[in-house]
């Protein structure tokens, strides 16, 4: 597979075909990305409460089921008539029944207190059965404090995805975002399902548009150091330690680290109007990538690291353009409508999401293939949609929308299904950025 792709790439390069080169990342993923992929039916028997707090089993089960549903790898099958008491019985006629109901995988677990460990007082065992079989084919025991109960279920869900697809799951991914705190806007990070929000900055003014480092250790973002200039800062999540990466004067916005972490692309107006630059994070050398009298901004790296999408108003209203990673070969990608901005290149390489202004002057999400051949409008209805960001598996997008009044954060499948609001606290949540998978 990989060899074939390489040969194709070489051919493309040799004949000098300019256009869409399949990203190197695509051949890592297995059959779950194919359009004819059939979801695997899973029956969740439940998480049995074995001596823990009253809520423990139910919460683990609820989180696990949500994760399985959102994985889009599995589909949940009802397994009526299977109680916890049946699980240990071998041979178990109910398992055969579940298989006849369509479940090709059965999952159950038990959770309780763990004695004699002050840092890890909760324990959860998760087990997997292949449908119709009475034999456990996989299992793991997760231990931790009561503050990581949701994380235990996320971990188990990710391992299920990994077992059946070979891909890392997304259940332990995070979403960074901006939340209004009184008169200020500060950085927050939450779990991918909107739980466990955590405030990262308390500068008392504006911190905007966070993006992750590929190893998930850092966020880069626009920080208003004072009320007169914007810098690009980096914060280490584990420690809260901060560095100023770019302090050129003028507008310094929309930072984006390359997939290998070697370059920071960003927009700066320090030489006049907003242009794109890239900073080598190893040598700290700065290189200008665009030269145009209009505004260039919002760089988004292809997963291969060889190209970037960006927004530019060099044609009037903002439109999406593509360029090579050295700033050469700039070409326009979007031609429909007079306002297309905030591009986000899918981690699978096959789509670029962006904000499109519809003929009714609504700001919605659109998708376009990097060769410009296919375009779809993903969201509809009232409200300003903004800041699309892909899940690490490329199956979902997170974005902000004012559909319910104030700006909140929503998740949607890449096929436009399963729109789900994920922030409910706070008066204004915006600029979501989905982390890479762990």
């Amino acid at each position, binding site marked *: 597979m990989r060899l074939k792709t390489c040969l194709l790439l070489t051919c493309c390069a040799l004949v000098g075909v300019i256009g869409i080169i399949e990203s190197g990342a695509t051949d890592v993923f297995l059959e779950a990305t194919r359009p004819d992929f059939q979801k695997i039916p899973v029956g969740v028997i439940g998480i049995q409460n074995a001596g823990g707090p009253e809520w423990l089993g139910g919460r683990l089960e609820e989180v696990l089921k949500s994760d399985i549903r959102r994985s889009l790898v599995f589909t949940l099958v009802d397994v009526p008539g299977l109680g916890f008491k049946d699980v240990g019985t071998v041979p178990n006629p109910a398992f055969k029944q579940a298989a006849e109901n369509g479940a090709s995988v059965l999952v159950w677990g038990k959770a309780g207190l763990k004695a004699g460990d002050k840092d890890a007082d909760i324990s959860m065992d998760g087990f997997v059965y292949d449908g119709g079989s009475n034999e456990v084919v996989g299992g793991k025991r997760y231990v931790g404090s009561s503050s990581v109960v949701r994380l235990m279920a996320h971990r188990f869900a990710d391992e299920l995805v990994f077992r059946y697809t070979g891909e890392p799951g997304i259940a332990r991914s995070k979403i960074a975002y901006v939340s209004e705190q009184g008169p200020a806007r500060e950085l927050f990070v939450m779990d991918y399902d909107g739980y466990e929000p955590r405030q990262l900055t308390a500068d008392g003014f504006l911190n905007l548009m966070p993006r992750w480092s590929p190893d998930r250790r850092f966020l880069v973002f626009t920080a208003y150091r004072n009320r007169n200039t914007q810098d690009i800062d980096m914060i280490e999540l584990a420690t809260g330690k901060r560095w100023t990466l770019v302090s050129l004067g003028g*507008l310094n916005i929309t930072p984006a680290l390359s997939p290998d972490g070697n370059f920071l692309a960003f927009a700066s107006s320090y030489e006049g109007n907003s242009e794109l630059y890239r900073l080598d994070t190893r040598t700290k050398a700065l290189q200008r990538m665009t030269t145009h009298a209009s505004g260039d901004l919002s760089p988004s790296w292809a997963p291969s690291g060889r190209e970037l999408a960006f927004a530019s108003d060099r044609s009037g209203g903002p439109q999406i353009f593509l360029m090579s990673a050295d700033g050469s070969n700039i070409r326009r990608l979007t031609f429909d409508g007079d306002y297309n901005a905030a591009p986000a290149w899918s981690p699978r390489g096959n789509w670029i999401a962006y904000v499109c202004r519809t003929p009714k002057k609504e700001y919605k999400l659109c998708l376009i293939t990097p060769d410009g051949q296919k375009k779809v409008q993903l969201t509809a209805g009232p409200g300003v949609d903004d800041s699309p960001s892909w899940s690490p598996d490329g199956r979902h997008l997170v974005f902000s929308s004012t559909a319910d009044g104030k700006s909140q954060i929503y998740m949607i499948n890449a096929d436009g299904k399963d729109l789900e609001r994920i922030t409910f606290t706070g008066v204004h949540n915006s600029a979501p950025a989905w982390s890479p998978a762990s």
Partner: protein
Amino acid sequence: MRTTQGFWYVPMMAAVLLMAVPGCSKKAVQSGGDAQSSQQAATQGSASADAGSSGGGVGSNFPDTSLSNRDAGATGGLRGLDTVGGGKSPSEERVTNGAMMAKLDPSQSGRQMDAIRSEQAAADAAGLRDVFFAYDSFAISEEGRQALSRDAEWIKANAGASLKIEGHCDERGTSAYNLVLGEKRAKAVRNYLVELGVSAGRVAVVSYGKERPFCKERDESCYAQNRRGHVVVKTEK
């Protein structure tokens, strides 16, 4: 394209070096001459960002973000589920949330708002007027020109003063593009003031895009208030 890039690259690198090197030494001189400001800078540095990189230009001491520098095993850990059977127990894995331990230091958070209030108070006392823009536009209207004529008179009459123009946008459109549009609005205001004879050096610009709206309702009258070049008196250097 390639040629243009090469053409820009050399002088730009030189400019960055020039900015970075004397920027630091100048800062040291200032700090020596003014104990109070140096102390303040140090406090701000520890509370917000690494002080060593705040001299302007590009940071020199931030950590390398390259993936190649990391131990590949450190971020992964996906080993898959154990194969268990015959009554064996699965292996144990410790689940921790250790990657999210940042502590907040809110001690500086009131400072910006205090400064904003003082800028606003000075602007109110001076009777400065704002400029309002049409949807998607950074063109200054006739009404805007009249407002700016008055602002220009004030700044010419107050020799020591400086102005700051904040560019604002309504909530429609993307956060990022509105920052660029806000900067275009602020610069359009500055350019007109310069046309009226105000020295460009006395007019700073900043864009807040749609991030600091004056009015938070979702209707045209509110949007119109937010498409603004807000003129304030700059109270600090």
